[in-house]
């Protein structure tokens, strides 16, 4: 077999067993492409459908005319959805919880992980064992619930942003990343008279931006999407995050005491478009940043796996 052809086969597009130059893509390729296109379509369709329903005229939706694109453009659903004070409040809460929780997670985890990356640290062994035990043994849901109650954290913002901020798994990831930073960087700062706190914030963290970005994004998405913590610990309506409100609208069908509730009860309008608008509003921030972030997400899962 000539070398040129071999190279083409290994590195080129598709399978070159067929010598016909026009047929660059073989039938096997076509089948694979078709399957993958179908999978992509299935993934994309729900988002597309909800987006179209939320923008459509209510009568078109009731007649099931909406399939791929909005029919009879209308912004009524969004207008109704966004004028509701409680919805806006819960949206605001979610943003606050995500940002604060991520801030705590990044700072406490780096503070915990940095000393572990120093060989001579006198508590290194103790801290490592103390954390590792929690990876294998845990109290379970009910004792955790009672602990939070006994600490008086029920119905406060702290129950959402503090308990999850330090986890053994994350500390290991941070520590491994810090270990990859050359020692000479730290040593030169010691010689210049810097203490460990200064070194962490002025030298280690600035060169760990890739790590902080990845872990920060995971944390934001995690808190943004979490409904269970709020479900069991938050009772006051004004402190509920968006996911809880969405749960009542989408899953329980109650519209729990929002202004929409009256509309729903009066059956003045069909709530289908409003539900679709709720879904779109909740995923929109993610959809906007998603294309920029997805390479970080992919990287993040690999950081976690290689170290494990």
């Amino acid at each position, binding site marked *: *077999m000539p070398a040129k052809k071999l190279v083409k*086969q*290994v590195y080129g597009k598709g399978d070159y067993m067929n010598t016909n130059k026009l047929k660059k893509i073989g039938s*096997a390729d076509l089948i694979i*492409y078709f*399957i*993958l296109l179908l*999978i*992509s379509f*299935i*993934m*994309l369709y729900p988002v597309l459908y*909800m987006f179209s329903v939320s923008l459509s005229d209510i009568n078109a*939706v009731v007649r099931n005319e909406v399939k791929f694109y909005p029919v009879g453009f209308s912004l009524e659903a969004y207008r109704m959805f966004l004028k509701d004070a409680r919805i806006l409040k819960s949206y605001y809460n979610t943003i606050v919880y995500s940002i604060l929780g991520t801030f705590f997670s990044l700072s406490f985890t780096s*503070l*915990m992980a940095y*000393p572990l990356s*120093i*060989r*001579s*640290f*006198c*508590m290194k062994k103790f*801290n490592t064992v103390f954390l590792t035990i929690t990876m294998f043994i*845990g*109290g*379970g*849901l*009910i*004792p*955790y619930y009672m*602990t939070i109650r*006994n*600490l008086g954290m029920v119905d406060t913002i702290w129950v959402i942003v503090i*308990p999850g901020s*330090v986890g053994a798994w994350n500390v290991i990831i941070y520590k491994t990343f810090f270990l990859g930073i050359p020692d000479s960087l730290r040593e030169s700062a*010691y*010689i210049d*008279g810097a203490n*460990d*706190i200064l070194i962490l914030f002025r030298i280690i963290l600035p060169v760990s931006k890739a790590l902080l970005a990845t872990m920060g994004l995971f944390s934001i*998405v995690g808190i*943004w*999407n*979490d*409904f269970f913590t709020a479900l069991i610990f938050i009772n006051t309506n004004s402190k509920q995050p968006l*996911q809880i409100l*969405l749960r009542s609208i*989408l*899953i329980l069908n109650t519209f729990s005491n929002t202004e929409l509730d009256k509309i729903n009860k009066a059956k003045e309008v069909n709530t289908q478009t409003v*539900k*679709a608008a709720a*879904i779109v509003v*909740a*995923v929109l921030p993610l959809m906007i940043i998603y294309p920029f972030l*997805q390479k970080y*997400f*992919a990287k993040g*899962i*690999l950081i976690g796996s290689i170290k494990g």
Partner: protein
Amino acid sequence: MINLPSERIELSYTKKIVNYKYAAIKAIKRDKYLILMSIPGLLITFLFKYLPIYGLLMVFTRYNPAKGIWGSEWVGFYYFESIFKDPYIIRCVKNTLLLGIYSLVWSFPAPIVLALLLNEVKTIWFKKMVQTLTYLPHFISAVIFIGFLRQILSPSTGLINFLLSQMGIDKINFFGRQEWFRTLYIGSGILQGVGFGAIIYLAALSNIDVSIYEAAIIDGANRWQRIIYINIPGIMPTVSILLIFALAGILGNDSLKILLMYSPQTYETADVLGTYIYRMGIENNNFSFGAALGLMLSIVSFILIVVSNYASKKISETSLW
């Protein structure tokens, strides 16, 4: 004084320091900032990880939150016995196991197949596009995702039922029928997880040495043979590690998702141990019963991970520890 890392090591290991106590004080003095840094993390771990472990003692008492563990009546193993007498426990164990087995059979291989398919695609932009679209559902919250499904599958207004009725098939109340629950659970799990799960296999595939493919092509291996004899053995170590996790997690269904999907009509197939613990312990305030059930569940899960790790070590020589 200049405090070099190299000096630090010397301080703690040379024989110069005879007095052990003196060395300890010196080490604490030297590491004071590092110790200070660890405090928030240690405190949070203690409060939210260790206190619940201590709180497990409640399984031996008729726990009353107002009185605490030591003020409540001590009942020994009463709650463990009552678990075995509970009328719903068989149903929960059966559902938990069945959902676990089904997701092992269906959800576990799905990302492997997707990764093998994607690996065959040589058009970069197409590969990127498919990857981007398949990760997407992973980042959508369970509430919204189940909300999507409920909307689309709704018997009165949903698109799927509309299409079914146009084809002359009777409408199906998917979320209200117990025989549909497992299909919905596994199907939605695959949709949400397949793209993200494929990332790790794609990374393993890209690590396979190109020269192996070259040699195979020279030997006349066709594409199918290359997949069977190069790609699949190449990702086997990754597969077996993840299989250990999957086997160990067979009891750990996604009970948060089930909480959003089930209703009293579908309890027969949908109620699992996780949701039962939630209902008994938090909704019905039967704290000790819920905690006891949770403890038994985690003991069995722990045994499962040890056993599957041991089995994997024997069979394929890969293990977690």
